């Protein structure tokens, strides 16, 4: 029964597989607490779906109903159309990776054996399981030297990486993550988040990620499900849409401050119009540069890389621009960075204009304040909440 979705990596193109469907799911605990109430949503295959909401809103309960650590009291949860309740729990769980906040590593097993846990359970040959574990340690960015250590000899961040490696060991198509990064400090957390996004770009798992941190949800989620206490779905949307158009006051409040600015992160900066006439080479004569009508110019070196801004009125009568001290500049990578980065770059330049560079750092042109203004106005039109 579990065969269909268990085992190997998704072949390219089978987008329909490994989807998780909540169909009117309810969980009422024996004491009468309704933790999840009529939840219906889909976690599409190959995407990160984030459950976010205040403490006690039923995130963990929802997650654990997928691998049957908790059984729903109403409705159905389907994995590629198969009701999870028809699959025997240990079999079901071996095909679903699970990562929790405290990592949950086995203290009595070496790191390599911790990672190889599910392969062992699946009856893999010991040598093959360990080889796979070593491969995964590397994949999550851990030194293979750590393989022979015990968990207590690792830092919190390292343990969390081992937890991720362990969840991936048997290459399950589905990954459940319950606040996996909330027990580590902000810097480690950010690097673990980046690591997860990098891994996901390679692996294309169907991931359900639980967090109470809306910024984490927005950073990681392809889609974000905001839950309210009582286990009801408040809104399910892509992060940009959530920021632009919150469904109600609860969601708006939960999204917190600076919603407008944060939303700019999801608007690509490559639509911005460039001006190429504000760039001058360092070898140019200062006197001729003074002849332009522009108050600020970007000086570039022989390679086309930016050196900084010069103000027309400060230019000397003789010599080249190379001899003129240049003011600091802000730059963004066109084609990669968002409108937010472009705005940030503009705010870091005394001219108020942003320098646009290509992937290798060469100046492509300048985005003026006026152009940014127009782009912000277009962005504001898209916001309805």
């Amino acid at each position: 029964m579990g065969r269909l979705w268990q085992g190997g990596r998704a072949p390219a193109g089978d987008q329909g597989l490994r989807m998780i469907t909540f169909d009117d799911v309810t969980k009422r605990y024996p004491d009468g607490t309704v933790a999840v109430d009529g939840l219906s949503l889909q976690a599409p295959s190959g995407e990160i779906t984030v459950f976010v909401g205040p403490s006690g809103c039923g995130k963990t309960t929802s997650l654990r109903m997928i691998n049957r650590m908790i059984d729903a009291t109403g409705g159905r949860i389907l994995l590629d159309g198969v009701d999870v309740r028809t699959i025997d729990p240990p079999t079901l769980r071996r095909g679903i990776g699970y990562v929790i906040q405290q990592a949950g590593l086995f203290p009595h097993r070496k790191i390599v054996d911790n990672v190889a846990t599910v392969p062992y359970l699946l009856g893999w040959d010991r040598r093959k399981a360990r080889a796979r574990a070593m491969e995964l340690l590397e994949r999550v960015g851990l030194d293979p030297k750590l393989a022979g250590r015990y968990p207590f000899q690792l830092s919190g961040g390292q343990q969390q990486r081992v937890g991720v490696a362990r969840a991936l060991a048997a290459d399950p198509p589905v990954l459940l993550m319950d606040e996996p990064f909330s027990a580590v400090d902000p810097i480690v957390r950010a690097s673990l988040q980046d690591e997860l996004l990098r891994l996901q770009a390679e692996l294309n798992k169907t991931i359900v990620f639980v967090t109470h941190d809306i910024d984490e949800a927005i950073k990681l989620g392809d889609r974000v499900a905001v839950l309210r206490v009582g286990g009801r779905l408040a809104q399910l949307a892509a992060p940009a849409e959530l920021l632009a158009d919150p469904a109600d006051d609860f969601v708006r409040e939960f999204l917190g401050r600076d919603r407008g600015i944060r939303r700019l992160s999801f608007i690509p900066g490559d639509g911005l119009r460039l001006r190429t006439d504000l760039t001058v080479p360092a070898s140019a004569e200062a006197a001729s540069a003074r002849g332009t009508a522009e108050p600020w110019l970007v000086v570039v070196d022989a390679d086309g890389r930016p050196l900084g801004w010069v103000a027309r009125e400060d230019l000397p009568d003789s010599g080249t621009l190379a001899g003129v001290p240049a003011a600091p500049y802000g730059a963004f990578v066109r084609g990669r960075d968002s409108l937010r980065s472009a705005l940030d770059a503009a705010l870091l330049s005394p001219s108020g204009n942003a320098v646009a560079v290509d992937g290798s750092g060469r100046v492509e042109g300048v985005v003026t304040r006026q152009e940014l203004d127009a782009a912000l106005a277009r962005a504001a039109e898209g916001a309805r909440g």
Partner: protein
Amino acid sequence: MAEEPLVRWDWIGRNWPEILELVADNVVMALVPVVVGLLVALPLGLAGARWRWFYQPAVGVMNVVYSLPSLAVFIVLIPITGLATRTTVMVPLVFYAMAVLIPAVVDGLASVPDHVRQSAVAMGFTPLRRLLAVELPIAVPVVLAGLRVATVSSVSLVSVGALVGRGGLGYLFIDGWQRQFPTPIVVGIVLVVLLAGAADLLLVLAQRWLTPWASARTAARSGRRGAA
């Protein structure tokens, strides 16, 4: 009248074979009950960890047993298991060992962190495999700490059996007392302490070897102390 020395070395030399026999007897009578006690305490401890309603009464009964004076128990057992037999001495020692080991097993299982248990469930362990491969191994340091207490007290409790005719090294105390002759008493005390120390050392080494993963912190936890 010449002052009697604390230790007469020539007596030790002459009686060495008998002393060794007493040591062997003491070892057997002390260790067999601990092993049997452990074998019984494992399932009972598992039951206690699983069903809390079972645990409290079981510990209550065991505490009552633990509080019974050992001599009284030996005397009660004589009509059943005979005077001066090993069995008479070992039966109560099994119960004393259990009184220490059942809580040790329950505490050991309780020492398995909840997130570890949960992640074992989430990875697809069956309940039996989880118990054998995750929970029991993690319980080992706490159980071994209890085993150390049980072993040391069992080694010294054996000597009380001398009062009913079979007490291993305890015989030396009775002998020395009856003859107002300190040498056997001193020898007995030294050997009991050495024996207990050796057993304890072996268990500490076993602990190091079995649980290299246990940090010093968890290994230092121990059960109850004391003897009846």
